[in-house]
């Protein structure tokens, strides 16, 4: 226990240097900005800024990029409450009751509760990460290729279970993602695979290109095809700070939301997005007046908002301790670490303690800054929301193009992302989810690498995955989870979590 405080002390010493406080502030500011603007997400923003971070030191770069991610969670709620469209996918639930509150002239209280809830969630999540960091890393060191492979398979199964909609489609999307990650030079033999002799495919498909295509451009196509109704609240926002009584009424929802979000955030795939939904469902279930939900209940704002912030932060745990990215943003973080020459995995905590603990400490500082950035500056963000979409999306196109080009100064990447945007639009039309595809793609290369290593060690025997007790245990958990997901009764309640909201 004392170690945790000692380590956090080291972290704060790193994070509180003038330079890192500045990077944290910049990250939070950019994060809030892209969170507020609908249609620009943290994935696209971090992709664009990835080449830029090359000039920074690793700690500063990661502090800034992390700030963008959790900052976007704060900003997303502003748009959800004031405009009734989620600025971020994780703020979908907030829009329901938050916007109702805004219509009743209580926009300020909704924003205030969201910010305070997020801050409490951020504080608790920071402690959770600090406490789990060392034990998780120790566990990670016990893992060989066999166990890593099984852990990833289990993670992908969880991603399927947590995805909503058809199970068949979710599994298929993960497999397509893994398959796409195989394109390009074979990591062992260097032989080109499925590249059709195209130069731009020799090194495989860049993750940033895939992400900007199926998330960035596809989102624009989607909005052009089915425009979202904007409904900006006119009139005053009202007081921002909730009264003590309102705080007391909401603290339960905030703490429950934090707990739910923190647990789901660690799980791969939809974890961070599912958190707010689960929190909303939980609040509705225990509420004395469930019929009021949807008409502006404060708990339906503070709970889910705490959940998405907690989830955004705890999703760093698998990345920092095991080197496994649980979602698309964390996959970009892997990229950010790699270009700095740091290989993510359990060794990071020993080799780069100042990075590990500095990043964790910066999250708390960032959360404090976000409360300050968000509440008093709310007028500024509201102004930003009046930028019409007809100007916003050309700007997004231009930023994405510049970002795509600067990955490798190659125009072919820009075109490929455009084509992938069409693919993403088709996926949306056929109701395939893009998130499992991105996750499969992210874990694909690692999955194949570990599979091959494991089979080399075991002389080609597949039995190695069940004869290692740890690996067998992980696979068993995955199998049980999959069985549960297929069972009709569980499937129903899984759908209900989304239907409720």
């Amino acid at each position, binding site marked *: 226990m004392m170690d945790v405080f000692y380590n956090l002390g080291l972290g704060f010493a790193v994070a509180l240097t003038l330079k890192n406080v500045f990077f944290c502030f910049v990250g939070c500011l950019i994060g809030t900005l892209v969170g507020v603007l609908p249609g620009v997400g943290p994935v696209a923003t971090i992709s664009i800024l990835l080449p830029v971070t090359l000039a920074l030191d690793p700690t500063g770069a990661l502090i800034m990029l992390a700030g963008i991610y959790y900052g976007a969670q704060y900003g997303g709620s502003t748009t959800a409450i004031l405009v009734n469209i989620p600025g971020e996918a994780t703020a979908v639930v907030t829009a329901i009751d938050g916007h109702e509150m805004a219509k009743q002239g209580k926009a300020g209280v909704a924003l205030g509760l969201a910010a305070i809830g997020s801050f409490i969630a951020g504080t608790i999540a920071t402690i959770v990460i600090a406490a789990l960091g060392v034990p998780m890393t120790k566990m990670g060191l016990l893992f060989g290729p066999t166990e890593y492979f099984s852990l990833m398979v289990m993670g992908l199964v969880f991603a399927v279970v947590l995805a909503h909609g058809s199970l*068949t489609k979710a599994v298929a999307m993960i497999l397509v993602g*893994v398959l796409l990650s195989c394109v390009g030079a074979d990591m062992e033999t260097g032989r080109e695979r499925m590249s059709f002799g195209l130069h731009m495919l020799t090194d495989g498909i860049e993750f940033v290109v895939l992400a900007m295509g199926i998330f960035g451009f596809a989102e624009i196509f989607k909005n052009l*095809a089915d425009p979202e109704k904007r409904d900006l609240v006119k009139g005053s926002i009202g007081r921002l700070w909730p009264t003590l009584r309102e705080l007391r009424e909401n603290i339960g929802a905030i703490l429950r939301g934090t707990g739910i979000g923190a647990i789901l955030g660690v799980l791969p795939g939809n974890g961070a997005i599912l958190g707010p939904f689960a929190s909303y469902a939980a609040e509705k279930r225990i509420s004395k007046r469930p019929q009021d939900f949807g008409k502006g209940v404060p708990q339906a704002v503070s709970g889910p908002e705490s959940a998405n912030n907690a989830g955004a932060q705890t999703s760093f745990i698998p990345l920092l301790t095991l080197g496994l990215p649980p979602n698309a943003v964390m996959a970009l973080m892997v990229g950010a670490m790699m270009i700095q020459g740091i290989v993510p995995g359990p060794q990071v905590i020993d080799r780069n303690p100042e990075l590990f603990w500095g990043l964790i400490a910066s999250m708390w500082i960032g959360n404090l800054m976000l409360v300050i950035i968000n509440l008093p500056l709310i007028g500024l963000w509201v102004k930003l929301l009046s930028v019409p979409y007809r100007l916003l*999306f050309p700007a997004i*196109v231009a930023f994405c*193009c*510049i970002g795509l080009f600067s990955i490798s100064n190659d125009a072919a990447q820009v075109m490929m992302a455009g084509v992938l945007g069409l693919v993403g639009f088709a996926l949306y*039309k056929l109701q395939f989810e893009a998130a499992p595809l991105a996750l499969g793609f992210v874990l694909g290369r690692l999955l194949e690498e570990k599979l*091959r290593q494991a*089979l080399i060690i075991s002389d080609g025997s597949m039995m190695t995955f069940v004869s290692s007790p740890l690996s067998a245990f992980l696979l068993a958990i995955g199998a049980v989870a999959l069985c549960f997901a297929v069972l009709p009764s569980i499937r129903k309640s899984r759908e209900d979590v989304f239907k409720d909201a």
Partner: protein
Amino acid sequence: MSHETSGGPTPPLASSFFLGREQLAGLSLIGFGLFALYASADLPFFTQGGVGSGLMPRSLAVLIVFLGIVQLVLTWRQPAESTGRWPIRDMMPVLIGIFLFAVTIRGFDFGAFRIPVLGMLVATPLSIICSGLAAKDVRPVELTIFAITLTAICIGLFRYALAQPLPVAPWLIGY
């Protein structure tokens, strides 16, 4: 966000001749899987050292085809739901905007003719104006002013503030 827009029931197609969304999804999976099988046909499944470079891609492709068949079987008898509008024409300006950026930023050789390196100064406003035409409520003057302003900001931000090695306007200022 997709579950918000896609969750609601879509009206069934008037004619049952057309394939519905779910059946189409199954067919696309089968198609993609078969294509991947074709693309990876030359890769060895096993080598002497162990797993060959074809094992993962080919087994995945087979699984995807299998899932496509499962999807078809499961949804075959469901009423065909429409996938809604595919307004490709409305999307074209954005695609062309992206394409124009790609061919002008560092030039492009089409064989018959070649585009010189025009740099950010040309590529950025071109992509903004072209893609902006996709909006139904487009205002040309506003869009042009916006494009010029944003280009200046982008050049200032990416080339000067962030020191990215992007060509600005080699034909004008040499870099």
